[in-house]
């Protein structure tokens, strides 16, 4: 066992624990059957439909807006422009208004809005609004924005740089002098869209007293109430936020977006409820993305592999307005300073206005970008100094109970275990090329299959006859067939096609020894059913292995004065527990985790637990779902509320049964004798005894949990989180040297999660994180030209689909953080963070070519290979 492991008391070891089980999300039946009532399913009486006119000009002065034709359409109930509403600046940079009055600074700027009897009428009315613009000089890149004499985008920011972030520890000059090897690169990172399955939307509904109910998809309901109040001119105490099931957040719902106050203005103007939802195209055009940025990084190491310094200058393309996303450098600096031990670190970031669409928070909050740059350079330094990159990382990794140079106290740190476990699982020593670009063995030990390939990849009935039959040569792989149309397969063969070449099938063997403290899960995936007919002959396919680690907050992030979460818990006479939690559920699975924690504490079956988590009139305050904080903070809050209820129940039982409280426990809906496990009384009786007995009391408890963290000081140092998450991914790739196609064969992911609470949930998070990370690394890119989005649809914005997923293997490093609920740390963002970096490192290992831009599209990879003459 590693010294980092802090054992929890085994006080109730005999009882079957719910912790670590595989528990389906509580709302899974609703979602799987289509019964979940999403925003689009909610139709209030007299409800109207809102729609927005977007500028469609990246930078222009609004000369005139003519709404007369739109207003004449039958069924149109309101047409609003900036002239019709009180304009209150909002947003992280206070540079946004609901509708724009004089100037538009990006194509998605909201210019007018309509409420009508049907969505079709609203759409028609929008088309009838005539806006006269006078185009202004366009700023399409941060370089252009920072050049002398560049057009000013917002008057109050004459240099076009609304935010700067600086961080420093140690002395860079000293670090440079101490270095035996130094590398310097610029990393260019693209825009990525959240692609929530549910598009954005809201319903605004005033009652007769002027109170406002918002059916909103926000991730931060309490902050939201506070922030939207001044914009719409309703006091926060008269606002109620109800969250219907949310079809994904990933950070996109941290901000107030202009469509939200716009919908409120439409509801006020018509005195009717208004629903406003986005089409997928609007979702692509008018919701923010992950920050595109250029990271210039220089770092060094000593001969023995000790890291010496890291000097970072970054330029972020903020777009035409500012959201919370502008603060990502604040998280990125933590990775630069604390993923590994580095004595001298400096970061300077400029967040720059352009006339591009703007960026916001996105799972990882800048960390995937930071990790891509940092982990690329670790690999380069290791190569320069002749070290195994795994050993080099181990040498510089932190240990538990260390405080990082930026002042973050690592109560537990399982990074070394993650590094070793993922490397072991991936076959690091056998499969990695010791020298990048010099493959030890060519892939697919078997010969590639000659002409032609096999039957179409479908589960269609197999045809009988065939022409052009070729004898299958004994050494040919069994997955390919020698003739047209014929689908003769051996029984054990998968039905999926391998295309032209029978790729040798690799399956990872179960390890024979498994370390006791590793929770372990394995995923196997069938090869995608598409054929890979363009794949080349063996000598043009090269394989490689690459790794990348991550560091992220795992116990909240103290950006407000409180990073807490409230819980109210009530047990009815029948033993049903209602948990009212401030924690929002956006699909991440907090419902199941909180129910598990409460059920475990009260010895009740899961079905007795109800979670209420979506109504600010009922639920207590919470910061919001962000910073991977919910399991840790809402979990701790629920745990404490449940513990208090448990204490009350056991005390009442002890009094009734004339036993000592220490002798009793709760299990399976009963009070049991701790020593023997024998039930001594049903819990229902105890509860009703409290309610109807001498005391006449209800079993109700409440808790407001504040994590043991502190806000950063003026130099941005401090222990900002209650716990810190670590992890390592190793990717195995195959690169086609003629087409540039990168195929990810396998990802081995090891994560320090503190402790697994819901194994099903956490596996889902890793799978989703890997899919999203592969999208970031390989295919996803919002292409913007002259301020306009070129690919606002799933046709040309390529997500990774289920069928594209590689084989995945997971290891859970359970360091049992003393501050976490049952030892758990936050985890939601972690699995996305290192994926692109690991894949790029694997491509480097396979080809010897370092690519410093994402995504690694075949075209980009081929171009870089050709530049490097591979």
């Amino acid at each position, binding site marked *: 066992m590693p010294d980092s492991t802090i054992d929890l008391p085994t006080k109730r070891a005999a009882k079957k624990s719910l912790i670590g089980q595989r528990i389906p999300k509580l709302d899974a039946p609703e979602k799987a059957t289509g019964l979940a009532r999403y925003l689009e399913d909610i139709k209030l009486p007299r409800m109207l439909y809102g729609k927005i006119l977007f500028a469609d000009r990246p930078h222009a002065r609004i000369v005139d807006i003519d709404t007369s034709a739109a207003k004449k359409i039958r069924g149109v109930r309101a047409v609003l422009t900036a002239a019709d509403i009180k304009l209150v600046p909002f947003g992280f940079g206070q540079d946004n208004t609901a509708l724009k009055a004089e100037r538009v600074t990006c194509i998605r700027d909201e210019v007018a809005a309509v409420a009508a009897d049907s969505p079709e009428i609203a759409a028609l009315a929008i088309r009838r609004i005539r806006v006269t613009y006078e185009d202004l000089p366009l700023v399409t890149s941060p370089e252009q924005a920072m050049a002398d004499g560049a057009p000013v985008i917002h008057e109050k920011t004459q240099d076009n740089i609304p935010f700067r972030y600086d961080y420093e520890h140690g002395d860079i000059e000293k670090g440079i002098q101490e270095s035996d090897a130094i590398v310097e690169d610029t990393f260019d990172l693209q825009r990525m869209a959240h692609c929530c399955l549910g598009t954005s939307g809201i319903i605004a509904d005033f009652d007769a007293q002027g109170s406002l109910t918002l059916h909103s998809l926000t991730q931060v309901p309490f902050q939201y109430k506070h922030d939207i109040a001044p914009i719409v001119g309703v006091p926060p105490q008269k606002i109620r936020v109800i969250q219907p099931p949310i079809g994904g957040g990933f950070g996109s719902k941290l901000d107030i977006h202009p469509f939200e106050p716009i919908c409120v203005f439409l509801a006020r103007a018509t005195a009717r409820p208004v629903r406003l939802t986005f*089409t997928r*195209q609007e979702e692509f055009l008018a919701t923010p993305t992950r920050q595109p940025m250029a990271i210039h990084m220089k770092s060094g190491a000593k001969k023995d592999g000790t890291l010496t310094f890291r000097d970072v200058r970054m330029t972020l393309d903020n777009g035409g307005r500012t959201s919370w996303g502008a603060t990502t450098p604040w998280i990125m600096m933590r990775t630069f300073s604390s993923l590994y031990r580095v004595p001298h670190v400096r970061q300077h970031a400029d967040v720059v206005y352009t006339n591009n669409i703007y960026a916001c928070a996105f799972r990882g909050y800048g960390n995937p970008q930071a990790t891509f740059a940092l982990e690329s350079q670790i690999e380069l330094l290791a190569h320069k100094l002749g070290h195994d990159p795994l050993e080099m990382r181990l040498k510089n990794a932190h240990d538990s109970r260390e405080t990082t140079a930026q002042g973050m106290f690592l109560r537990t740190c399982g990074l070394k275990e993650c590094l070793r476990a993922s490397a072991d699982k991936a076959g690091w020593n056998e499969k990695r090329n010791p020298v990048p670009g010099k493959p030890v063995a060519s892939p697919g030990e078997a010969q590639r299959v*000659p*002409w*032609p*390939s096999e*039957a*179409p*990849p*479908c589960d*269609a*009935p*197999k*045809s*009988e*006859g*065939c*022409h*052009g*039959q*070729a004898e299958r040569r004994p050494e040919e792989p069994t997955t390919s067939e020698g003739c*047209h*149309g014929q689908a003769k397969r051996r029984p054990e063969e998968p039905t999926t096609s391998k295309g*032209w070449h029978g790729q040798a099938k690799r399956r990872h063997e179960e390890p024979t020894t498994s370390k006791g403290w590793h929770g372990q899960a394995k995923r196997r995936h069938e090869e*995608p*059913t*598409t*054929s*890979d*007919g*363009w794949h*080349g*002959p063996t000598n043009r396919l090269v394989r490689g292995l690459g790794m990348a680690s991550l560091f992220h907050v795992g116990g909240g992030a103290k950006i407000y004065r409180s990073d807490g979460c409230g819980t109210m818990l009530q047990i009815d006479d029948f033993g049903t527990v209602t948990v009212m939690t401030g924690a929002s559920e956006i699909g991440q699975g907090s419902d199941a985790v909180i129910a598990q924690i409460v059920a475990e504490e009260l010895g009740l079956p899961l079905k007795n637990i109800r979670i209420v988590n979506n109504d600010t009139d009922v639920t207590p305050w919470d910061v919001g779902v962000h910073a991977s904080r919910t399991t840790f903070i809402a979990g701790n809050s629920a745990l404490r509320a449940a513990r208090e209820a448990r204490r009350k129940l056991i005390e009442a039982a002890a009094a009734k049964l004339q036993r000592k409280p220490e002798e009793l426990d709760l299990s399976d809906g009963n009070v049991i004798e701790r020593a023997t496990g024998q039930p001594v009384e049903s819990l229902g009786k105890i509860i009703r005894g409290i309610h109807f007995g001498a005391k006449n009391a209800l079993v109700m408890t409440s808790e407001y949990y504040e994590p043991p963290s502190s806000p950063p000081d003026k130099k941005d140092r401090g222990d900002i989180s209650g716990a810190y998450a670590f992890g390592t991914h190793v990717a195995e790739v195959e690169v086609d040297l*003629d*087409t540039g*196609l990168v*195929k990810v064969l396998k990802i081995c992911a090891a994560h320090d999660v503190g402790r697994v609470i819901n194994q099903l949930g956490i596996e889902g998070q890793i799978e989703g994180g890997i899919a999203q990370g592969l999208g970031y690394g*390989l*295919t996803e890119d919002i*292409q913007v030209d002259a301020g306009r989005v*070129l*690919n606002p*649809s799933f*046709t*040309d914005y*390529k997500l*990774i*689909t289920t*069928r*594209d997923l590689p084989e995945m293997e997971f290891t859970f490093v359970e360091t049992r953080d003393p501050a976490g609920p049952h030892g758990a740390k936050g985890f939601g963002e972690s699995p996305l963070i290192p994926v692109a970096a690991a894949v790029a490192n694997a491509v480097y290992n396979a080809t010897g070519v370092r690519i410093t831009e994402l995504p690694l*599209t*075949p*075209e980009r990879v*081929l*171009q870089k290979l050709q530049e490097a003459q591979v």
Partner: protein
Amino acid sequence: MLAYHRPTTTEEALALLPNATGTVSLYAGGTDLLPRWTRGIVPWAQTVVDLKRVHELRGVARDNGEICIGACTAMSDIESNATIREHAPVLAEAAARIACSQIRSRGTIGGNLCNASPAADTAVPLILLDATLELARLENDKVERRTVPIVEFFKGPGSTALASAEILTHIRVASRPSTWLAKWDKFGTRPSMEIAVASVGLALDLSNAKVQDVRIGYGSVAPTPLRGRAAEEVLKAKPLTEESMNQAVDAAKAEISPISDVRASESYRRQLVGVMLRRMLERARNS
């Protein structure tokens, strides 16, 4: 939409077209039409004539040594049809590579061709197979039919040889000797659900040690799916040698006219066509 019709015969369908209210659209699987309508790329048609119930237009039949495919046959049926898998497997293979099973069970081969996208995945296999298309229109209340070779059907992106009020009814391909090998492949920007950045088809007979009956086709690299006559010419009646393969690749790169767009650049598409054709030729030679 003002009117929706669901005729059951070709004649009935054709008769609806001249008298329809406003803009008319023939509608098969709708997998090309609906996304375009709902995204507002083109306005909704005012009259929709749904062809799916026209019996004549569905299914696959053998006819005098030819395979006759109804225009409204779904991709999933093409993919699984025993006759096609046996006698024109390259077409089944292409059908199976389109989109996902949901789209394949709605989208039709006729829609794929009439939509006339340079990236239509069944077009190049049908070029290899020398397909002929049967078109029908109404003249003096009588159904008139004509045939058009596939290479003459495509006129440009979204544009075909169909006259107004004309329907594609069938696609015919001839059976080939068993020594004739045909292969088609596409390259997208993601392994699954890919729209071709470039596609290449090659068919030939090498049974006499010389290239015979060669057909080459390209998709997504010209305004229409394209037959590679120049590359074919280089290979014809010669053994497949290093030199002839190189020349064919050069000819292929010269006869296509790709564009740069959001999916790929012109030069990358050219390189891809070269690599794909070269690999197909090598495998043909090694087989």
